[in-house]
């Protein structure tokens, strides 16, 4: 017979109810002003959350109501056209964007993960140069994107690298822009792998690199993937730096990575349509925004799902 069963039960329940009533009565003595103020404060907070969400909901709804009329195969299959806005589309811009982010991934994954591995697994934190690298990366993550555009123009398109206004130059510019994001995310993922894993591997005779490659990296992959996806989606949505490194022309053919005839990208094309006063072009801009939002929100949701799914497995 348990303590709360049998004949004792009703009496116990009575005692609990009595205690609860007493406590509630005591707490009701809280100054009325406090109670009211508390409620008002909570209401204001909720209002702020709702305003922020409403703004973003309005953005989505507006794009869908104004742009959905031209959604269709023509939008992705046709090149832009100033003469026939009803037949104009995003084909070269979409192909350009895909090539741009392919280049970004090729550059950013090895370099970003490499830098993160160095900082987490090899660097001696007490050395000033390692602190310098760390602070430098944090600062780079917050340097305005247009400054990367200037860097691309003066250093990659002209100057030392002298690539000219080609798609690969735009890709490299975007890669430098998102590299700090990847490094920071990869470092966090690597740091989350417990030390016991490393020590176990080293104790079994593995070298440091074997430990990293066979134990640390596989365990950190979900976190690294999240960072890479978020970085790629940032690169995909960036417009300003591309304006400076050549993606400005009204391109009507499919761009190539090293072609010198110019290239375009999705957000640049949207910008191009958006600043034209005619209604047809504005509709096209909204349709382009729908396409981008669907792709970006899907990518970001997947990245965040990935992170939440695999976080804290230890």
């Amino acid at each position: 017979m348990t303590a709360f069963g049998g004949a004792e039960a009703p009496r116990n329940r009575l005692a609990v109810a009595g205690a609860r009533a007493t406590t509630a009565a005591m707490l009701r003595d809280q100054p009325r002003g406090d109670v009211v103020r508390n409620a008002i404060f909570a209401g204001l907070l909720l209002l702020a959350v709702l305003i922020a969400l409403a703004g973003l909901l309005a953005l989505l709804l507006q794009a869908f109501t104004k742009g959905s009329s031209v959604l269709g195969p023509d939008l992705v299959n046709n090149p832009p056209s100033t003469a026939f806005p009803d037949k104009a589309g995003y084909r070269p811009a979409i192909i350009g964007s895909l090539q741009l982010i392919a280049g970004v991934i090729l550059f950013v994954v090895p370099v970003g993960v490499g830098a993160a591995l160095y900082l987490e697994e090899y660097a001696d934190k007490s050395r000033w140069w390692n602190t310098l690298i760390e602070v430098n990366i944090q600062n780079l993550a917050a340097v305005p994107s247009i400054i990367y555009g200037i860097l691309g123009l003066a250093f990659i398109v002209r100057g030392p690298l002298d690539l000219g206004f080609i798609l690969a130059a735009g890709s490299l510019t975007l890669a430098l822009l998102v590299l700090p994001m990847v490094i920071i995310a990869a470092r966090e993922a690597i740091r989350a792998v417990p030390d016991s894993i490393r020590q176990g591997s080293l104790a079994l005779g593995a070298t440091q690199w074997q430990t990293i490659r066979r134990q640390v990296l596989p365990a950190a992959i979900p976190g690294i993937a999240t960072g890479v996806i978020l970085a790629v989606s940032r690169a995909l949505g960036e417009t300003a730096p591309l304006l400076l490194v050549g993606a400005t022309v009204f391109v009507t053919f499919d761009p190539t990575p090293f072609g010198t005839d110019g290239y375009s990208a999705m957000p640049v094309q949207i910008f191009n349509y958006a600043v034209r006063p005619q209604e047809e072009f504005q509709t096209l801009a909204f349709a382009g925004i729908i396409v981008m939002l669907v792709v970006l929100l899907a990518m970001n949701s997947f990245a965040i799902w990935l992170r939440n799914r695999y976080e804290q497995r230890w």
Partner: protein
Amino acid sequence: MLQAQNKRYGERAIKWLLALCALLSVLTTTAIIVSLIGPTVGFFEIVPAGEFFFGVDWTPQFEPPSFGVLGIVAGTLNVVLWSMLFAIPLGLATAVYLSEYASPRVRKTLKPILEVLVGVPTVAIGFFAVTFILPEIIVPLWPGELLGGAAGKPFMALAASLGIALMVVPIIASLSDDAMRAVPRGLHEGAYALGATKAKVATRVIFPAALSGIVASVVLAISRAVGETMIVLIAAGSTPNATFNPVESIQAMTAYIATTATGDIASGSLDYKSVFAVGAVLFAMTLIMNVISIRLVRRYREVYE
């Protein structure tokens, strides 16, 4: 002593290769600074520094041109000031709600939504600002002829400000929420035990304890707002105007760079050099704010983590 049988040159090579990757980030910063300095020095050989830093007329296309950078710095500050007026209260309130009031379930849906929304491209926000915020929100709500009135204007600073506010609220909310959640549970429990209400715990205990992280998030948001290009380019207009009036059309520093440096701008021209001079000012402004933000975050990490 246990020792490796051979020297393991491969292991060392890998270490240096990885160090090279990390060094590339330092090289990026160096490259940014080097590419800004050259043309900027060339710019100051033609335009006196006094005229640049203290002049308020930014009219590079006039004859003779005038390069008073305050004309476009004011444009940037105008937009940033008004955007923060909305973004800071909204962002902080959202953060307090998330960390102190929201149930775990609400939090688990709300925070990812906010994080996803950080990814909305700014070209979309800029277009939204000029096609919805301006005609549907600012014009109907603006009180009559105040400050010259809002009706009939195709571009204005306030439209860009509200767009930027939309962009940075998730940043402030998410980072401040992290800072407030880093405050140890003991502080909550102590305050509740002393009979404080939820509002008092949030505002008098947790908020001050997380202040350095909260300030860091706000500084980072300001830095983002200063550097934002597409929203001001699309919504704020292109008329340099040293004013803090929110319903005027202005030109921000980033918008000047983006409109001037497009296409095949002649490499040695004064316009080309002016882009770098403005870029250098922009870089210096954001650098100062980023360093402040990084130091503040380090401080709260040291205290609580």
